C-alpha cells in the first residue's frame, strides 16, 4: 500500500532534518578542518544541503504539515548521525561523509520513491529526484579531493564502521502520534 499523506509528510520532515543536519555538520567542519582543499569541498556542499532542505520543507507544507516541518529521526539513526558529526581527522570526515553517509542517504531517497505512488505523489517525486541528482556530483568532488590530496588519509575503517551503523538503523522515520507538535527548525 502507498504511503498516506501524513506518512509522506513525516518522511519528508525527517529527510529535511537529515539535510539540515548534513548542512550544519559540514558548516562545523569548515573552520575545524586544516586541509584547504577539504574545506573547499565541505564549503561548496553546505549550499547543496540547504537547497535540499528548502525543497523538502516547502513540500511538507503541501502535505498538510507546517512549512519547513522538521522531524528528528529514530534514536538509532540519530546515533549514527552523531557518530558522523563527531569525527575529527580529515580523512575520516571525508570517507564517512562521502563513502558511508551519502550512499546511505541516497538509498533512503530511493526507498521513498519505491514506496510512493509516482503519479499521486508526483510533486514529492520531483523534489527527491532533484536532490538525488546532486549526490553523484558531491561524491565525485570528494573523489577528486582524494586524488589531489591522498595524504589526508583513507578513513576506510571509520567509513566502514559508520556504514554498518547506518545499515543497522534501517527504520528511521519517527511517525507522529496524533497529538504531536511540529517543529520548524533543529534545536
Amino acid at each position, binding site marked *: 500500500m502507498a504511503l498516506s499523506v501524513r506518512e509522506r509528510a513525516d518522511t519528508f520532515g525527517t529527510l529535511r532534518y537529515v539535510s539540515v543536519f548534513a*548542512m550544519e555538520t559540514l558548516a562545523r567542519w569548515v573552520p575545524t578542518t*586544516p586541509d*584547504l582543499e577539504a574545506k573547499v569541498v*565541505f564549503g561548496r*556542499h553546505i*549550499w547543496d544541503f*540547504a537547497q535540499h532542505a528548502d525543497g523538502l520543507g516547502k513540500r511538507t507544507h503541501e502535505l498538510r504539515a507546517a512549512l519547513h516541518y522538521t522531524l528528528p529521526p529514530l534514536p538509532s539513526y540519530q546515533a549514527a548521525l552523531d557518530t558522523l558529526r563527531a569525527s575529527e581527522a580529515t580523512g575520516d570526515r571525508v570517507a564517512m561523509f562521502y563513502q558511508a553517509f551519502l550512499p546511505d542517504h541516497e538509498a533512503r531517497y530511493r526507498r521513498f520513491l519505491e514506496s510512493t505512488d509516482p503519479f499521486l505523489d508526483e510533486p514529492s517525486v520531483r523534489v527527491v529526484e532533484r536532490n538525488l541528482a546532486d549526490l553523484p556530483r558531491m561524491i565525485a568532488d570528494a573523489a577528486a579531493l582524494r586524488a589531489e590530496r591522498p595524504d589526508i588519509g583513507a578513513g576506510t575503517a571509520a567509513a566502514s564502521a559508520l556504514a554498518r551503523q547506518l545499515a543497522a538503523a534501517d527504520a528511521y522515520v519517527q511517525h507522529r502520534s496524533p497529538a504531536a507538535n511540529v517543529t520548524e527548525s533543529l534545536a
Partner: protein
Amino acid sequence: MNRAAPTSTKTVRGVTLHGEPARETCFKVVSTDAEMAEWPDFSEQSRRERLHRHMNNECSAMEIAAQAVADFTDAPWDLRMAIARQAADESRHVAILHRRLKEFGGTKGEFPVSNYEWCVTGMIDNLPGRLAIENRTFEAGLIDILGQLKTTWRAAGDDRTADALEAILADEITHVRFANRWIRRLTEQQPGVLLLVAQAIRFLRAVNTALMPQVGETNTVGFTFTAEKQQAPAVDVDGRLEAGFTEEEVLEVLKQAGFRSILPAHVR
C-alpha cells in the same frame, strides 16, 4: 540569535580576539600587518603574495559564513539559506584563487597569512552583529578594493586574474546586499537589533585602532607603512549602491575615505 562565548581566544596588542581557525602546518599564521610579506610593487613575487593573501581572506570569509550556519540554528530559514549560499560562494573563490596561484607557480603557505576577519567576527555572539562586521563592513570594503584591483590587474595585462576578480566582485555585492536587507528587516521587527549592530561596530573600531600599523612601521620584507598606504581605497559607488547601501550611506563612506572636498557642499 545568540550563541555562547568563543571557545578559544588570543590577545594581540591588548585586544582579545577569537582563536585561529584550523590551518595546515605549511601556513605561517600571523596577527598583524607588520608580520605580513606585502610588497608595494607588482613584481611576480608580489602578484603571488596578493593572490595568496586574497585566497586566505576568502577562506576566512568561508569559515565565518559556515560558522554562522552552525551557530545560529534559530535564525530565519531564508537568512540561513543566504548564508549557506555565501559559504559556497566563498569556497569557490578560494578554489579560483588557489588555481590562479598555482598557475603563477605559487604554493599555499608560501607567504604568511592573517585570519584577522575570523578573529574579530568570532568575538561577536549574535548574528546581526556578525553580519554588520563581516558582510556590511569587511565585504563592503572588498567591493571597493576589488573595483580597483580588477583594473590594476587588467592594466598589467593579466585579463585572467582580472576576470576572476570581476566574478568574485559580483558575488560579494550579493553578500553585502542580503546582509543590508536582513539587518534592516531584523531592526524593523526588533529595534534592539540596532544596539547589537552598534556594539559590534564599536568593537571593530577598537580592534582596528589597536592593530592598524603605525606610519613608519616596517613589515617583514622591509616595506615601510606610509600615510598614503593607510588611506582607504577608492569607493566603488556603483557597487555599493547595488549592494543595497543608501545614497546617504555611500556619501558617508566617501567622506570617511577623504573625498569630502569633491562632494557637493550640501552633503559635506
